């Protein structure tokens, strides 16, 4: 059922769908009420670069506070970039005019973590899913309704639920509603910010399968943000590991999980408990907590917790090393 303006998929280019160069986001910390003065800044994202190809899933993993969600929000233009560039299909997003940005936003959507907090409880499922169409003035009223029914079926819900309210649905069903809303404009790129973390495991599987089916069918690209390395391994093509606002390692899934290079990645992988009856290997457990992003450690940010750290780690930023497409930021391999 084509509605004009829905299908803009034909303009494909050879370059990456999305490319990010030296992306930085510092949140100012201000003191004082009447005349606030900036006393410091939270370095949430501190110079990261990556690209996402069409139909690709890039997994972004890291512990809480490492800047994963901020990265997602920066890509979508929900936060203002402090410095650095975001290229979408080869064009610098910051050079676009307002109407062009509006057009671009149709292509990029977000699926939230908490399906209980992200749906307006006073809106029916139909109006929730339809809202983006109304905002972008797409289709007639009848076409929009038709589109909602189509999408409800696509995400595995009964079209009869259209007139019901979010509180009548379980967490998994709400997440399906959130996904239907995210794909209603036929986007090319979706940021999935911890989409299954709030769900029970038996329900989690259904949502992951749905995301994969939709990717296949509509040729979507995902930035899949999660703290769960098992889920990321399942769904991603490539994986980037973040620590304190920096990417420390990025590689395709197979390389990263079978041959993790960065000590932090190794520690993360070793920390995950596996539901397995076989004897467990002795895990190596990281000491201490993640330092504050207000005053991150000098040199390599991981050095205070790293078993291999030397003087050079304390003093110098680790270089980017490319070992057959497996990127790592660590002095160990320099």
């Amino acid at each position, binding site marked *: 059922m084509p509605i004009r303006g829905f299908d803009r998929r034909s303009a494909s280019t050879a370059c990456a769908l999305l490319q990010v160069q030296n992306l930085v986001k510092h949140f100012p910390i201000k003191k004082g009420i009447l005349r606030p003065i900036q006393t410091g800044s939270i370095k949430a994202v501190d110079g990261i670069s990556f690209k996402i190809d069409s139909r690709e899933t890039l997994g972004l993993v890291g*512990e*809480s506070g490492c800047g994963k969600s901020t990265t997602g929000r920066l890509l979508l233009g929900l936060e203002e970039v402090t410095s650095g560039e975001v290229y979408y299909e080869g064009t610098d997003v910051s050079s676009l005019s307002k109407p062009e940005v509006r057009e671009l936003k149709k292509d990029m959507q977000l699926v939230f973590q908490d399906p209980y907090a992200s749906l307006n409880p006073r809106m029916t499922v139909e109006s929730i899913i339809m809202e983006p169409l109304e905002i972008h003035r797409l289709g007639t009223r009848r076409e929009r309704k038709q589109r909602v029914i189509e999408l409800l079926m696509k995400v595995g819900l009964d079209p009869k639920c259209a007139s019901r309210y979010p509180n009548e649905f*379980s*967490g*998994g*069903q709400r997440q399906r509603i959130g996904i239907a809303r995210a794909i209603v404009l036929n986007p090319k790129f979706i940021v999935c910010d911890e989409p299954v973390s709030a769900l*029970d*495991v*038996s*329900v*989690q*599987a*259904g949502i*992951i*399968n749905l995301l*994969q089916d939709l990717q296949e069918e509509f040729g979507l690209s995902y930035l899949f943000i999660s*703290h769960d*390395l*098992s*889920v990321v*391994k*399942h*769904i991603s093509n490539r994986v980037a590991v973040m620590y304190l606002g920096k990417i420390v390692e990025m590689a395709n899934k197979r390389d990263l*999980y079978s041959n993790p290079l960065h000590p932090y990645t190794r*520690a*993360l*992988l*070793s*920390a*995950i*408990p*596996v*539901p*397995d*009856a076989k004897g*467990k290997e002795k*895990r190596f*457990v*990281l*000491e201490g*907590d*993640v330092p504050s992003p207000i005053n991150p450690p000098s040199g390599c940010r991981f050095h205070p917790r790293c078993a291999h750290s030397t003087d050079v780690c304390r003093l110098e930023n680790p270089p980017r090393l490319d070992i057959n497409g497996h990127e790592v930021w660590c002095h160990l391999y320099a």
Partner: protein
Amino acid sequence: MGECIRKMNTLLEVRNLTTHIIAEEGLLTPVDNVSFTIHQSETLALVGESGCGKSMTALSIMRLVPSPPARIAGGQVLLEGEDLLKKTEAQMVDIRGANIAMIFQEPMTSLNPLFTVGNQIIETISKHKGISGVQARNHAIEMLRMVRIPSAEIRVNDYPYQLSGGMRQRVMIAMALSCSPKLLIADEPTTALDVTVQAQILDLLKNLQEQVGMAVLLVTHDLGVVAEVADRVAVMYAGQIVEQAITAELLSRPYHPYTKGLLSSVPRLDEDRKRLQGIKGTVPSLQSLRMLTGCQFHPRCQYADEQCETEVPEMRELKSEHFVRCWKPLVAVGE
């Protein structure tokens, strides 16, 4: 640890524990005829999804269910042979903290933000051990050292907000262990924490358990955590225990379709899965359970037949120490 279980003495025996909630819709049963035992120095994991009654079971053992609307309706909770359900509230106050201690999922909400962590540990110590002043304070510092909080003698003066999530959970553990309880109930102790911190806390719990020889009832939804720390596992669904076995046995040969479903729902690091299995439908609400006949799991079970829809299955011991509540257990041919 698992091999020597049977030689040990029973510490806690829960028999047919049932808890009701009086709601507008009528009587709901979040804990339905639950029975299990925990031996000394053993870790039993209580596993299930949200709303299956695992936390209510833990709270019922402590007699901490919010009453009303909830009410412990029947059964026995025998701690070293003495029925906790027959104790007076004053007696329970002495038992909680001293004999059974509990730690919770969210360490921020279970610590009082207005008092230093030292004060909160000292409160427990002086209540149950009858020591106070410098002595109690030193004991508190010692406890903080035991849970490996760096510079404990300074940290003892910190307020909860000054500590990270992992540190707060350590403080909770220090507080819980300060009176050397025989049983520690840990309700999702690592769910709110990052994986690297979770690994630290699980390691700590394991070491402390060996040091002081207490038993642990671990409430969790994470089968990975279970594999790491538990000796035995009880799987809960809709207020009932549906399967119980030694950890390795349960993970490698689950009998109940629900346990099997839980295991195949999660993507795993150690193997590639093309597609996740999941379990159809969602966890039933307590309200909807009232209408259900037969096995509680049958609407979501792929093996369910007429018997499952009408008759309630009883807990059966299909193999030594492996119990299951199912008409169609997934027993291999020849077993």
